[in-house]
């Protein structure tokens, strides 16, 4: 293994991750510096249930109109995000648990996942370029983040195949892209996964307070406003 690769797999990877963690902490701290909305009305619902269902919206495609109407959009979303998880785990597996990649099934599963994620990513890119509404709202970051992730998936799939071969430059590029992604994520829309629980929590909390989104038996409902 070249010295460059060793450096990328360990020191640089850890440094990039630390930077990302620090940037995340600053972002969240900054967002929490804004005052929260305080409810002065009496609650009508059961917070824990509604907040939980809000947090798990991602796993409840029937609750979102777009997912209901276009199941393939949801399938793309799932595949794309599983691919992201697989590619990120690969950046840990290769330097720390390489023995896992000696198992043929693991290698094949990773490859299929990453290639599927790449296909989903390309479909997303095509959609973004071909839909006028999406083109209008897309920023430079939207395109760059998508291209970067697609590149990450392809390199990931390729890296597994070449892990035991001679082409270490592919592995090197994969880790270089991984480090760049870690540095770039806090400043891009990819950071949405960090905000997701907070946004969903606040929306769920507001809905729960008002008893929105759950079936209320009328007889229970008529007294729910009681002190």
């Amino acid at each position, binding site marked *: 293994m070249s010295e460059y690769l060793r450096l990328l797999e360990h020191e640089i990877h850890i440094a990039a991750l630390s930077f990302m963690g620090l940037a995340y902490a600053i972002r969240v701290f900054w967002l929490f510096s*804004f005052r929260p909305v305080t409810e002065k*009305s009496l609650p009508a619902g059961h917070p824990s249930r509604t907040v939980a269902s809000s947090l798990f919206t991602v796993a409840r495609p029937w609750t979102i109109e777009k997912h209901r109407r276009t199941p393939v959009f949801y399938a793309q979303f799932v595949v794309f995000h599983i691919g992201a998880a697989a590619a990120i785990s690969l950046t840990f597996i290769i330097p720390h648990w390489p023995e896992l990649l000696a198992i043929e099934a693991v290698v094949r599963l990773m490859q299929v996942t990453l290639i599927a994620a790449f296909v989903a990513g390309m479909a997303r890119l095509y959609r973004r370029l071909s839909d006028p*509404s999406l083109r*209008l709202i897309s920023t*430079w970051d939207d395109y760059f983040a998508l291209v970067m992730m697609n590149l990450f998936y392809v390199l990931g799939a390729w890296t597994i195949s070449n892990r035991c071969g001679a082409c270490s430059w592919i592995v090197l590029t994969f880790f270089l892209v991984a480090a760049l992604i870690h540095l770039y994520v806090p400043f891009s829309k990819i950071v949405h996964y960090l905000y997701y629980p907070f946004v969903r929590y*606040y929306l769920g909390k507001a809905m729960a307070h008002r008893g929105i*989104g759950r079936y209320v038996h*009328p007889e229970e*409902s008529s007294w729910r406003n009681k002190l």
Partner: protein
Amino acid sequence: MKGRIVNLAAGSQPDSRSATQYRMLSRLFRERLTREIAFSMVSCVHCGACAQACHYALARAHDPCMTPAYKADQIRRMFNRNMNWIGRILSGRLNAGTSAADADMERLRDIVFGACTGCRRCTFNCPIGVDNAALIRFTRGILTEMGVVPEGLSNASRNQWLSGNQMSVTEEEFFDSLDWIKAELQYELGVGDLDILVDKEDCDIIYAVNPREIKYDPHSLMNAAKLFYLAGESWTLPRYGWDQTNFGLFSGDDRLGAFMAGNLYRAAERLRARRIVVSECGHGYRSVRWEGYSWANNQQTIPTESVVETVMRYLIEGRIKVDRLRNTGSVTFHDSCNVARYGGLVEEPRWVLKQVCSDFREMYPNGVNNFCCTGGGGLLTMPEYRPLRLEVARIKADQLKVTEADTVCTMCHNCRDGLGDLIDHYQLNMKVVQVMDLVAEALVLPPGNEGNINE
């Protein structure tokens, strides 16, 4: 609408007026931003799922500017320029910018007031949970503060500030209407002891109405008075603070919101009422039951409910009797956005309707997924946006048509007008009523009292 915005900060030369507006905008941003709004500002991934949920985007599929994310982005750009430290460093990458010239402010006004009813359907259908409706209201509030607000909305808001009600109803008009309603009801029910009391202390219910019930449509109040009489309720109207509507909700002006809701809360406290009941009004219910307490910084201490919930309570407690065979036509129900998506009342009106109608049929989608009547967000007071409103009402019209019902029922005055407007425009063979109209029709008088209803 063209997708354009002037980027002052990126180098265009502002005149002094624009510069002043820019400073004001920045100040208002800093003062008003809440944590929930800030999270919605930073979380959009531009997936475009919201376009499938918005009646504007669905009806005008050829116009990408109707996508909720695009509308929200117009204010998000200013956030990125003014508040977001990443946007300040990398303004180009995040499309950060700010509109401060008059033309840009007017364009922003047309987007947030004229191209969004704040129905919140996109929020409920956003995979992340970005509250675009809250962003729109936040922007409306900033523009209102800066005086960039449609005239009709501004006039109604001014009326509320000056007279305590949106239609500037005088005290004489108020008492005249109540006298007329009382006389009509006494005749209709054939009773002499029916009274509509004002400012009576220690009642169980303080009832707040929409000023149109005093000025143009006394039947709504008459229905409520009939209900309370037959239920043997102890109720009163306040002399001041009876207007439950709240243009602070539409304009994003929380101070007006606090003033209007506070009038009613103070009246309830002064009269030692044990429950606040609001007549059928979507935004009135939302304002009084939910937002108003926070705006007025007033901890809720007494139950607050819609009159539809009151009807349900009476039916469950056996205080009134109804005959569903008095409403034999087919009836469908339109959920008001402010009542269902913002207020959580979905089952209650349906339960009541099933008691008072013999042929109730659902509209699809419904409940929190229902489409807006297109008259929400104060759009009915802004005639300049009427053509666009009626164009996008096609979605609602199609929804209504499929039900094949004779009557569409709602529990909101704005929805009633909005639906009436689109029914005329799309020539649907339907009439619009409110829940209380059907309840009043179905109410059974006590034995021995036949009244003079048929006359």
